């Protein structure tokens, strides 16, 4: 650290030789002070609202009325959580979200992987045009397809299930996934597939035994991107929730807020806190993968 910037915040008088290391450390601390202050403010802004929400979820109805909203709960009672699960249907909402999200993500990833292989590794006339045709769907908003889909789902009588959501999410996820998969396949040296052919492995077999294992990381990345975009969707879920038992987490939270938001704060606070806590646990284990995955997805997109 010999090249200290000329704008040192403190000017100290006549240096005494033995004080030099201590003084340098002090100057360093003073110089770092604004940074630490900034980081502290940043972390408070990011974390306090979540902490406040979780603390609020332990409060009783009387505490909400009697104490200021920033006060800590008087005791940790779990009544609100019981309320959220029994009357608020949080458990059913979570189950629905998983029943919709997991099959959709699996379908999106598999369909995109197969199409990416067919469009990038296989060589045929018109594959560029087909890729462009599929990519055209990336920008189309969900609103543009909902009315016809709603009509058709109603006609074939599947609106009373989670199937409309799964089908719609799959269709919505395919364009971006196909595009990303094709881009990832482009990065793999063709020689790998050609060598397999020389060894007598047909192109369909090399899709399963070579492409799939090679693309494991890319599949995980895309699965994460799609997981969060399906899990956090409200528009499609709201359109196809024909009765409360089909509500996903997002829809469930919204109706919970409509029903109890202005009277029973506890249950709502608990329902929101459950989301924060569950996702925090998932995030602690997967944060590197999630952060890298979501970032990679949007750069290519």
């Amino acid at each position, binding site marked *: 650290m010999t090249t200290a910037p000329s704008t040192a915040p403190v000017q100290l008088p006549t240096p005494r030789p033995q004080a030099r290391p201590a003084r340098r450390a002090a100057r360093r601390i003073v110089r770092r002070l604004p940074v630490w202050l900034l980081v502290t403010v*940043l972390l408070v802004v990011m974390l306090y609202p979540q902490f406040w929400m979780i603390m609020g979820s332990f409060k009783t109805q009387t505490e909400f009325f009697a104490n200021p909203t920033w006060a800590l709960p008087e005791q940790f009672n779990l009544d609100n959580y019981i309320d959220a699960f029994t009357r608020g249907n949080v458990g059913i909402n979570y189950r629905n979200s998983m029943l919709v999200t997991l099959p959709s993500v699996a379908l999106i990833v598999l369909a995109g992987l197969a199409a990416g292989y067919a469009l990038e590794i296989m060589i045929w006339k018109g594959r560029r045009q087909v890729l462009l045709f*599929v990519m055209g769907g990336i920008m189309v908003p969900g609103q543009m*397809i909902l009315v016809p889909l709603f009509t058709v789902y109603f006609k074939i009588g599947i609106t009373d299930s989670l199937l409309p959501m799964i089908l719609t999410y799959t269709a919505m996820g395919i364009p971006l996934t196909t595009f990303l998969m094709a881009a990832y396949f482009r990065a793999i040296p063709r020689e790998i597939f050609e060598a397999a052919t020389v060894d007598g492995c047909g192109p369909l077999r090399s899709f399963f035994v070579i492409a799939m294992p090679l693309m494991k990381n890319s599949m995980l990345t895309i699965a994460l991107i799609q997981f969060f975009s399906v899990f956090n969707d409200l528009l499609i879920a709201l359109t196809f929730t024909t009765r409360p038992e089909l509500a996903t987490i997002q829809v469930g939270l919204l109706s919970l807020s409509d029903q109890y938001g202005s009277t029973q704060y506890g249950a709502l606070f608990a329902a929101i806190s459950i989301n924060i806590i569950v996702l925090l646990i998932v995030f602690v284990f997967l944060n590197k993968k999630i952060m890298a995955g979501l970032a990679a997805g949007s750069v290519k997109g």
Partner: protein
Amino acid sequence: MSRVFGDKKTILILLLPTLSIYVLLKVIPVAWSLGLSFFQGNTLRGFEFVGLDNFREFAGDSAALNSVWVSVSFAVIVTVAQVTFGYLLALLYVFVLRKGSAFVRTAVFFPMVLPTVAVALLFKSLIAVGENQGPVNDAINAFGGESIEFLASTAGTMTIAVIMTLWSSMGFYAVLLYTGLLDIPEEVVESARMDGATGPRLVGYIIIPLSLPILLSSIIFSLNATLKVFDSLLALNNGGPGTTTAPLTLYMYRTAFEYAEYGYGSTIALALTLLCLVFTLVVFRPSSKRVED
């Protein structure tokens, strides 16, 4: 070799399922929706061909024009804010915190994965819990200010919506731009430093030009996401007060599914699609040229 990779059967097996889902559930509905925008009515009432009436109605519908304004202003303000804050955070991670940035990076990113409705309800509660005012106004009072009823006014609701979106997604843009900054070769920055470039000048002349491609793709990504904003404005204040903060997406949803106006709803959806297209082209055109240079 090309004969093997041109095998028709393999192509069909791998491509057909994807392509048929895409065509059946996306392409045909888009075309269908396009057609519907020339009709009035719904499935129960029947449809009536009205030509360009829906488009004329849209041009004179103050609620529709207001929702276009809400969508566009929200998208522009949030995009400018979140890319700026994200970039500043990325610079903080790379040049100030360096190796020690992992915890801050993770903590600021986390709200991105929370359900948007949960975030909106959290912010709604920070403003007010039923009749009681929330910590935000408590803090304003502590500094001697008057309590503000944010959600009672259009400007207040939009302010909260922007802050809320920023809170939940700036960490994501920070990570995105951070990975871009890490790709800048160490030697370039070092040699610029030796030539005497420090602080703002180093950022302005070296770092920003070198990270321009990722900056532009962040802007496109952000515009595309914010133009489609639906959940946060719906959950925060139900598009209110009145319908003054209802974006185009919400106006379309209500027209089509609450008032069962499938035809007019499709017209609004088309307007939304065109809006996304125009924004992407406006950003993409000059940017792709500049990147190639």
